């Protein structure tokens, strides 16, 4: 259940806040340090919480035309991102794998 702030720059999912302007993610007010790619990834997924992104699409949207493009890069970044969120204390898996398709943002209420 996304509560967009009035200024549209911040996305809120219960305890998780993603601020697009300051490029910061925080959980219960505690900031989580993410790499630029990880941040882009979570923003892209969080902005379309109902959409399933294939690995190819994510690669295209986030890695653009960089030299090094391997479909596995996406998996690795998702895994690292998940781990950072979990270490920060997130109790559910924010980025869900839709088996055989790709990745999707997981909202806390539908997280079971």
């Amino acid at each position: 259940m996304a509560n967009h702030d009035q200024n549209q720059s911040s996305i809120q999912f219960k305890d998780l806040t993603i601020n697009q302007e300051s490029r910061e993610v925080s959980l219960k007010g505690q900031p989580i340090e993410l790499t630029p790619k990880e941040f882009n990834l979570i923003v892209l997924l969080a902005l379309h919480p109902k959409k399933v992104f294939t690995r190819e699409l994510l690669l295209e949207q986030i890695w653009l035309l960089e030299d090094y493009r391997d479909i596995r890069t996406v998996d690795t970044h998702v895994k690292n991102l998940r781990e950072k969120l979990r270490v920060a204390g997130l109790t559910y898996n924010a980025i869900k794998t839709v088996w055989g398709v790709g990745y999707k943002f997981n909202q806390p209420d539908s997280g079971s």
Partner: protein
Amino acid sequence: MKFNSIFIKLSSMIMVIFIIVLFALGFIINKLFTNFYVSNVEEQTQQISSQYAHMTNSLHGMNVTMVGPLATISNKKIMVADLKGKWVVNTGKIHFLLSQKALKKMKTDGKYNQLVTIKNNGHYYVSGQAIYNKQGQPIGSIFVFSSVEAIYKTLNKVRQLLILAMFGAFLIALGITYIISRRLSSPLIEMEQATRKMAKGDLSARVHLSSQDEIGSLAVAINNLAFEIENNRKTRQEFFANVSHELRTPVTYLSGYAKVLKEKMYDSPEEHDQYIGIIENEAIRLNRLIDDLFDLAKMEEGRISLNMEPIDLEEVLENVSRKLDLSAREKGLGIKRQFAPHVNFIRGDGERLEQVFINLINNAIRYTEKGYVLIKLYEHSEHVIVEIEDTGIGIPESELPLIFDRFYRIEKSRSREYGGTGLGLAIVKTLTEIQGGSIEVKSQIGKGTIFKVVFSFIDRGGDR
């Protein structure tokens, strides 16, 4: 025997080769003998004729009259002709006309050698030599005739013997060919008959061959195949027997309790509800059994389509443990997780992997009354390993190899109480294996069981 059988093909091939060799050999032997005998005579005759020609220098007188006795001594016929080919001396009284060709040859070469046939007198080898006078002018020619009749007779005998020998050799070759072809084709025929029998359903048919060559190994392969099919048929029959038994039990319950309700054979509303509960449970059970059977059938036929992709097993196990958390807590068990950090991805189908671990963890919960279910995830030399450990009743060691068989249950009497379909572990094993993994089990009675699932990992892609 069929015309295009391997036996006919083989033997005719061998025989053709043999006949070619035999004829070539006979021809050469014949030629050798002929040359040997004839060249002997040729040499001798030519020698005599040239000697006489040297001794003589006129067609008349002493030298020529000597010809008669000389011919008698050397057992040859000697004739002298003038330049025109008219006979001056004819010791043999034979009718031999000098052809123009012979005269011409005599004029140019000074000699003439030929095998001739003379009417009523048989075969001769004739050697002519020109005679010269003292001034060196050719004046005529001397011809020596050697009979080759005896040689021809000998050669004919030799030829007869040769043909006889060839015929004998041919017969022996025919015999040997027959034996060889039989030896080569009879195992094939036996194998053909055996496989035909198998195809008709007599799977106990076997090929009885003991040779160590390729044909022998083919026979062994056929026997193995038959054994495998026989085995397959046996397990299929057992499987069908099991299936019908497993299906019949819930159906019996269903119809029995339905009848009880229909005839109102209960005393209290509580009893009524209890029976309805039983009917519902049995229906659920039946449904699950049918689902499992379909899954297994699809997998075994290879009709299941896998969506292979890089999989983070941590996520799979998290999803599964979240799903089963409630049923574990209902039994007062805790699901503990022990995940090593940064475990590599594996290649698999996420949905099917969830199915595998749901089955395993469900089993663990089902057979554990007290304690916990522990899920371990770690890496070990290029493998990602998942262990599902429980503190349940355990499995007797003698039954460990059988637990992955379809419908195998440890305690048949109590199986209904635990509520499994008997197909769970068979599904787990098949699913694991078609995704390239393996599964093993360790157990101690009364202490618990550990299922260990092993997959090879794929290198971590991208930067970390």
